[in-house]
């Protein structure tokens, strides 16, 4: 009985993996078949040669990074303050942070259009900059659940209250405490939240499309309608990007204080602790 268990679980893992890996492999194989009768990276070359591809990738990267920055600036002080001073409000804040998972992006974006449309006091949708602002705001909202979770978990791992008091009694102002003590200690949590945010907003379709922004998501959909092989190549590249994000996230999460920015894969032998 005990010996049969690993076999069963291995089978389950293989089955689940094949569910995921077989379509991925099929897509990959298809993406290599652009030139009839031979394997080639022609589809990838075609994608990279397109100006629209470069423009949308740049646009989406900037928009996603802006969303991460704004998200961090909102989430870190909020999570910190809630843990420090309003612990009773934590469930409420957590619930609010989960709202974007319940409310569809379509509803969100229609709300934006109504609130900031041409007839409103703040007609953001009339200018490019205004619409871009709305797009970033939308991305911030979409990634809020992941960002808040990641940062809040990071704060749970250190004793926020005592560290804050230790910094304060040494003369630090509130701002200095956050910048020099709290922020560096939740940095790896912020970074994992940031990678998650990035992977969500980079290929996002609904908000970008309804706001008519030249982002990567709408481009992906457009290509899917117009071409045959390039979408497969794009899908594989998106996968690679997301996976790279995940790997980086893991590396950052495992970083020890004083270690390098990117941890070595082979650790030097651990220093011994003398009493």
């Amino acid at each position, binding site marked *: 009985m005990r010996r049969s268990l690993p076999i069963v679980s291995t089978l389950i893992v293989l089955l689940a993996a094949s569910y995921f890996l077989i379509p991925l492999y099929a897509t990959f194989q298809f993406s290599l078949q652009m030139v009839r009768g031979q394997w080639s990276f022609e589809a990838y070359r075609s994608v990279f040669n397109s100006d629209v591809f470069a423009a949308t990738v740049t646009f989406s990267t900037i928009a996603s990074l802006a969303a991460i920055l704004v998200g961090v600036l909102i989430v870190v002080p909020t999570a910190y303050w809630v843990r420090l001073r309003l612990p009773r409000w934590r469930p409420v804040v957590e619930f609010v942070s989960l709202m974007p998972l319940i409310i569809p992006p379509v509803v969100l974006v229609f709300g934006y259009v109504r609130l900031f449309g041409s007839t409103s006091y703040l007609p953001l949708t009339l200018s490019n900059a205004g619409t871009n602002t709305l797009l970033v705001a939308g991305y911030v909202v979409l990634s809020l659940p992941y960002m808040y979770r990641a940062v809040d978990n990071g704060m749970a791992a250190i004793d926020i209250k005592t560290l804050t008091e230790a*910094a*304060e*009694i*040494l003369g*630090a102002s509130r701002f200095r405490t956050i910048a020099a003590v709290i922020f560096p200690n939740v940095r790896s949590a912020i970074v994992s939240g940031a990678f998650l945010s990035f992977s969500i907003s980079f290929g996002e379709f609904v908000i970008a499309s309804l706001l008519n922004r030249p982002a990567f998501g709408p481009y992906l959909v457009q290509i899917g309608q117009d071409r045959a092989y390039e979408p497969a190549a794009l899908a594989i590249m998106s996968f690679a990007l997301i996976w790279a994000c995940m790997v980086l996230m893991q590396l950052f999460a495992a970083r*020890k*204080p004083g270690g390098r920015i990117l941890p070595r894969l082979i650790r030097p032998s651990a*220093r011994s602790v003398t009493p």
Partner: protein
Amino acid sequence: MSFLRIEGVKKSFGGNTVVRGFDLSVEKGEFISFLGPSGCGKTTMLRMVAGFETPTAGTISIDGQDVTAQPPNRRRIGMVFQAYALFPNMSVADNVAFGLKIAGMPAAQIRERVAEMLTLIGLRHLADRYPYQLSGGQQQRVALARALAPSPRVLLLDEPLSALDAKIRVSLREEIRALQRKLGITTIFVTHDQEEALSMSDRIVVMNEGRADQIGTPFEIYNRPKTRFVASFVGNLSLLEGEGTGDARAILAGDEVILPFPARGRVILGLRPEAASLQASADRTNQLTGRIDEVNFLGSLVRLRVAVAGAGVLVDMFNNPGNPPPGRGDIVTIHFAPADVQVLEHTPPELAIAAE
């Protein structure tokens, strides 16, 4: 004018009063302990001195300056926390340098001061380590150096040793005391461990339910406890109940005991184990006889518990290799001097008469 003054301080959380009518004057360079059971308000009182809590009533002043409403980062106080609270993202040297950087000290001077502090705590070779690479005792020493580096006016320690194991606890407490003497820094040390408080302090504040029950030197606290709480919390004390006769005598279950002063009515008598002896002497004029319930061999001491007058009386005798202690069940006579009897609850005879 004393250096640190706490006057009429009271603290309530909602309807729950945690510190009541607390008064204390601390001289410059003095080492004060707050001693009391868990939950009696020691930490709360300390946090009010630090500025993390605001008193509901009363004032706190340092060096003649009223700091009651001052935020903690303006008070120039050093604090050591029970859980070390070192900054995990900074090396030992950076932890110690933190307060100096905030004070705006030039980098070269900071380096010098950090080296000086690390030498003082004997951890100079670990300057580049991170907190997670240190043992508990080392971390707490770094926390001490970090608190002392900016030359604070007052040092506060909240049970700094209670997370450490016994051996390090004893050596570190000696180290803390030596450092405190050397720097001459005014210190408040919170502990629930009476041995710590007795061995380290210039004066002890024994706290009970948010009140300072007694403030005095370790010698006074131990030998002349003012309340029954202090007597039972500090050191071992055998309690005996009796009836005062009004003329410096009490009757305990038929036996007569001579008291240091007259008392009338119900009295509670306390006796330290080291004041009781199985040997008679000129001043040990009191005697009680009973059966030995328990014999505890403690090394240099042997502690007996003798059943007398419906209670257990502890008797300490020195270990003597040539003379084994009596055994369980033996009948022995305890001798003690009237001057060693502590009369804890009594009505002075004149009041008793007035009440009748």
